[in-house]
């Protein structure tokens, strides 16, 4: 039951930034992840950004704040942000804020992103 350290693994592939979030996303970890992700946005100014949520183990409303904050950042830089494969737990939080109307959410069924 120990909380798992959150990480953002960020890979650029051509015009796309792939951001894989892992571990527990809460206010404590979001502070750090925000800086890491925004750094990559400013450095690469990607056309598209995909945030893979399939490996998030815990997320509360601070994760929502992190995602919506990155959506603003992406829009500011003219990038299109897509969320990939949120678990049912993460989806429950996204749904509470109606995030599906603000941001594209795709499920990856093993056929590549």
């Amino acid at each position, binding site marked *: 039951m120990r909380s798992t350290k959150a990480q953002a693994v960020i890979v650029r592939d051509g015009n796309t930034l792939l951001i894989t979030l892992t571990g527990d996303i809460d206010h404590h970890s979001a502070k750090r992840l925000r800086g890491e992700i925004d750094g990559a946005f400013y450095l690469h100014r990607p056309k598209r950004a995909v945030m893979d949520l399939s490996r998030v183990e815990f997320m509360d*409303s601070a994760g929502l704040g992190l995602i919506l904050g990155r959506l603003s950042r992406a829009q500011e830089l003219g990038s299109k942000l897509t969320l990939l494969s949120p678990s049912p737990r993460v989806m429950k939080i996204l749904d509470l804020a109606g995030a599906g109307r603000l941001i594209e959410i795709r499920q990856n069924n093993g056929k590549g992103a």
Partner: protein
Amino acid sequence: MNKRIDANVKEKRKSGRPPEKLKNEMRFELPALSINEGIARAVAAVFISQLDPTYEELSDLKCAVSEAVTNVIVHAYKNKTGYIYITMKISGERTIRIEVRDKGCGIEDIKAAMQPLYTTDPDGERSGMGFTVMENFTDRLYVISHPGRGTKVTMIKTLSDARNIKGGD
């Protein structure tokens, strides 16, 4: 839960072992540091696990505790130091009551604060969804606050009976 339902529950359990009525409780306090968000919800999970909750129930309660605790860290004490006070109590058959208290700045307008998307911290990237999560992930939510003296958030949830009927102890 009314008497009728309670009686039903007892009926169903007759097939297995007699239910040990759990009347446990736990109190704990931590400094309002953000590293303690993860610690507080892990401790809550340890305590709640004695009721053998479903994965969904445990995850919901961990998330609700995380919201209440984070609010104390983000909003209650601002630049001062202070403590988070948490009490968890089991009552009835499978009801858990969780109180998260602080001695911080308090909330001026509780009704406004509980509105979805309402936040007093737009720069910090708070989503304003904390109370909405607590409300949706528990059966009942009460908020009492005295400006300048602190806030008490009480969350109550009755767990389903599924595991017990399946028959572990």
